[in-house]
């Protein structure tokens, strides 16, 4: 059972990291971070369940979710600002554009 859970966590990490590395779209980079955070959430709860520390694990997951939302809200605002300035969401295009 533990092996299946840890394999799933590793798969989520690989999917998220692969996406993070390959995509150039800013919104999709955020989606990749979300996929990585799903893996972290699952890992924390699974380890908490196995060790009899589920309350501690839940409190950590709640903290992570709050940080995730704040991070996403600020990142969304930044993406909108970048889009209004440059008219693009492509990282490569934004990198070489000047005001």
């Amino acid at each position, binding site marked *: 059972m533990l092996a299946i859970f840890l394999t*799933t966590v590793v798969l989520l990490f690989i999917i998220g990291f692969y996406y993070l590395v390959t995509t150039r779209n800013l919104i999709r980079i955020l989606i990749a971070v979300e996929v990585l955070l799903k893996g972290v959430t699952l890992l924390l709860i699974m380890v908490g369940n196995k060790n009899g520390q589920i309350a501690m694990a839940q409190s950590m997951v709640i903290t992570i*979710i709050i940080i995730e939302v704040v991070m996403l809200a600020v990142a969304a605002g930044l993406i909108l600002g970048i889009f209004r300035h440059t008219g693009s969401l492509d990282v490569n295009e934004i990198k070489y554009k000047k005001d």
Partner: protein
Amino acid sequence: MNDFVIYILLGLLVFFALLTVIIKDSLKAVISLAAASAMLTTILFVLDAPLAAVFELSVCAGLITVIFIAVISLTKSSASEDETEPVKRRFDRYLYLPLILIAVVVILLSVKPFYDFFVVSSISGEDNVGDVLWNIRRLDILGQIIMILAGVLGVVILFKDNIKK
């Protein structure tokens, strides 16, 4: 029976995460991410973590999806690379991902390298999330309050120019 349900849920979680990555339309990718969140919520319920599950469902599957959809609709006129690139190039880019995943599954399930590392039998902890948050991890609460305030201030500053205009 219970194990079988968990395996199906874990499989669906990986499937929706993979779909999020491979799918071309950003909106559909976000909906797939919300479905992955729903699967994770069910897994958390099965693992006796109802409070984390409720947070996951309401915040990750709800609020975050709404934020993503809002950002996508506000930047819809941008022809992003992911939606305009040719199908073949996209296929080439994600060709190796399923192969890597299959290889990792085979390796991890056959070798079982470090699983004992995660299980510690001699810990006795609090049973109640409220007790943990208010007695043991008070600093986390303070950190969360500061994070939320910082986030609100950040959003206000980001939209300040637009309000003035």
